């Protein structure tokens, strides 16, 4: 298992895991999102080639109604 901080919450996932695997595990595989890993943007094309490490801080954002 690997422990990650996702959107401020501590969560455990099967190891090894990359960004693509994380999004799938969270049910976000088909959702339009943007991802930051330790404050660096992970480009969409690199999801499957970005392995995650213990204690990585991940932000997953989308857009919502706003003015």
């Amino acid at each position, binding site marked *: 298992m690997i422990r990650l901080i*996702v*959107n*401020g*919450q501590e969560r455990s996932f099967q190891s090894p895991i990359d960004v693509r695997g994380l999004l799938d595990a*969270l*049910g*976000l595989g088909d*959702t*339009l*999102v*943007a*991802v*930051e890993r330790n*404050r660096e*943007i992970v*480009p*969409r094309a690199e999801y499957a080639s970005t392995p995650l490490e213990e204690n990585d801080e991940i*932000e*997953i*954002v*989308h*857009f*919502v*109604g*706003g*003015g």
Partner: protein
Amino acid sequence: MNDDLLRIGEFEFKSRLFTGTGLYPDTATMRGALEASACEMVTVAIRRVDLSDRSSESIASTLIEGGYTILPNTAGCYTAEEAIRTAKLARELLDTPLIKLEVIGCKKTLFPDITETLKAAQILVKDGFTVLPYFTDDPVAARKLEEMGCAAVMPLAAPIGSGLGIQNPANLEIIVEQANVPVIVDAGVGTASDAALAMELGVDAILMNTAIARADDPIGMAKAMRYAVEAGRLAYRSGRVPKKLYATASSPLQGIIGSKHQ
């Protein structure tokens, strides 16, 4: 008025009304209001995905299928650093250079922090963003933002969500007079006459959210705002008559029946 296109960076708009997508009672009402407003660009906010509750209805499909140009904002940011981080996430998310830069300096008034706004604008422009900054209606700040390379300047008319209308028409006029980029009134409009007045002052467009979304009938108000913006723009382009203290008759003074002269 198809010859009257609005250009912002590489983008072109027929409609001079931009609308927010927040505060609507539901997505169907938002969709109806956007259609009634005939707007082409809409703002959205960037937020964390709620991992524990995925039930909330997404507006993404409505906006993407509707063909709207999406203008992400940095609402909720209080420092240049937070705003830049949000802007970069927005660019990755939406594959757009557009960003509505909003760096707030006061929770109560939601007035912008101009120092942080200028700092963020400079960095974002250098990074290739098409920056549309929200700022207080200050002609000096407007000039500085333009000189930095912002694609438009977006002075507030009154505090966000206040509906107070155009509080300082003189400042807006000065900003319009000196600007070489589009001037977009962002925030403070309450009803249709506010929108018409702003357009008559010569601003290039208006961005509003609360005035439409929180009206009793958002779809009706969206339509009213569409016509107000169009009417105000047409009046501005048509050149109003000068104001005079005394009357000038509209009908001929000669040949009045029963008069002693010809």
